[in-house]
């Protein structure tokens, strides 16, 4: 990796291992790097321990999304989903377990896959991509069981509601659709840009982040980041953050959001921005909290740089891992 390539690197996705000791990060060159958190967080960590323990090329195009199930790491980028075994990766064996492609209508152009999430109810993988549809892959049998059609433009992000069997998807056409995973139908369609309080016409109408807490939903992108009550489908709080937010998460009583701007924003549910913690990359694409391990409970954020910021205490940046 030459210095020019490092300069132009963007980290698009991250995922923690099921044991919580490793972090996998995917960049725009199609590589996935594995970092050892236990080495980086130990008291006698050196500069070498902040480098990856393993880097390999996973896809031909950028790795837009990574997700971990209890023993696999699933990665997707240019239309193909690859599965890797975590134990094998820890042993530095980089052979994928399987590679699948959803059934696209046109075989000429392979649309990219922008977001994946695992639906724990029926052990299925929800995949949203460039062909405007949400595909559902049954992880037990390895077949694509259904396609949810309804969006008129490509899908940026997907999320699942744990309590109800619902899938949420946010797309470039400005709509957040709520699908019933049992009936495979669109239950609600929220066009966020039509609400005056959230809309920001200068940025557009696209929705780039959707995340849900069963009763509440956060969505943002072109329109401002807003908190919605899903039962009444009404926006309750709008967060006055400049720039477009690319990923948001609920954490205890706070909301963490990253997007344009070199900081991680901490907001309260009431709509005020409590803090903005500065980071090195100029804009951040992905934010992950390590909930799989108690002693390595960190927050990591990656963006348009080859550094991944690690926060041990949410209030300040501890150190950076670099590719």
């Amino acid at each position, binding site marked *: 990796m030459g210095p020019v390539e490092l300069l132009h690197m963007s980290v698009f996705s991250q995922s923690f291992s099921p044991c919580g000791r490793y972090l996998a990060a995917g960049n725009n060159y199609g590589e996935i790097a594995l970092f050892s958190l236990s080495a980086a967080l130990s008291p006698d960590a050196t500069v070498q321990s902040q480098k990856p323990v393993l880097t390999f090329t996973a896809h031909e195009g950028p790795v837009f999304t990574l997700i971990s199930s209890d023993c696999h790491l699933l990665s997707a980028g240019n239309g193909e989903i690859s599965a890797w075994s975590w134990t094998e990766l820890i042993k530095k064996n980089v052979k994928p377990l399987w590679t699948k492609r959803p059934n696209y209508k046109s075989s000429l152009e392979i649309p990219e896959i922008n977001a994946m999430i695992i639906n724990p109810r029926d052990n299925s993988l929800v995949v949203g991509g460039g062909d405007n549809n949400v595909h559902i892959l049954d992880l037990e049998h390895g077949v694509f069981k259904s396609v949810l059609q309804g969006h008129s433009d490509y899908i940026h992000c997907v999320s699942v509601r744990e309590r109800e069997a619902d899938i949420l998807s946010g797309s470039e056409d400005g709509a957040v659709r709520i699908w019933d995973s049992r009936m495979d139908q669109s239950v609600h369609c929220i066009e966020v840009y039509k609400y005056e309080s959230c809309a920001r016409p200068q940025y557009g109408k696209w929705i780039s982040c959707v995340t849900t807490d069963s009763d509440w939903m956060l969505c943002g992108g072109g329109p401002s980041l807003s*908190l919605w009550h899903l039962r009444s489908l009404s926006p309750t709080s709008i967060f006055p953050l400049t720039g477009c937010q690319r990923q948001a998460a609920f954490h205890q009583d706070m909301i963490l959001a990253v997007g344009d701007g070199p900081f991680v924003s901490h907001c309260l*549910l009431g709509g005020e921005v409590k803090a903005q913690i500065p980071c090195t990359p100029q804009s951040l694409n992905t934010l992950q909290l390590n909930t799989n391990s108690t002693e390595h409970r960190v927050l990591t954020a990656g963006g348009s740089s080859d550094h991944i910021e690690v926060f041990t205490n949410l209030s300040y940046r501890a150190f950076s891992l670099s590719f």
Partner: protein
Amino acid sequence: MGAVTDDEVIRKRLLIDGDGAGDDRRINVLLKSFTKWCNSPGTPEEGFTQYQRMLGILAQCESSMGKTLMVYDMNLREMENYEKIYTNIEQNITSAHDKIAECKKEIQRAKRIRKNRQEYDALAKVIQQHPDRHETLKQLEALDKELMQLSHIKENVDAKLELRKKQFHVLLSTIQELQQTLENDEKSDNDDSQESPFLSVLFCKFSFGSTVFSKQHFKPSILHYVVL
């Protein structure tokens, strides 16, 4: 390494034996002077002074022995004291650990409560924007009443319309019958041909039927005309 340890050993021995050499030496000297004094052929004064000197040395030895005994006691007591302090501190540490765990749980609980409160506030904000339930109910009631009134009126108007239709139907059918009867009469009276112009005027009048006659009014007037 060997030289260092030798030096250390020598130094240590010197340190330890330094004091011990003094005491030991004193006891040896005492013993030697005692034997010399026992076997000395000197004058009684010399013997007495020697004796005094020996007592002095003995007293010195006893005092140093007393000192070391006291130091030993003091060390024992210090040890006990430290043991006590040590156990005390250990207990404090464990209780502090417990308190920290408790506080962490409290903080989690407080964060949950705060989150719930904020969610409540957010929902309350949205709900406040909607109008009051009582007012809406009252409005609904008023609208319902209006609706009922209007439907009553509509029913009345419908009934009236039906009635008028039936009345008109009766009128027109009676006119038709009369026309028929008059035609029949005209045909039968055509031989006479005296009342035909008068009857044709009557026909014209009846064929319009524009004015509304009630059934009761109509019968006597028809009879009246027919009689004519």
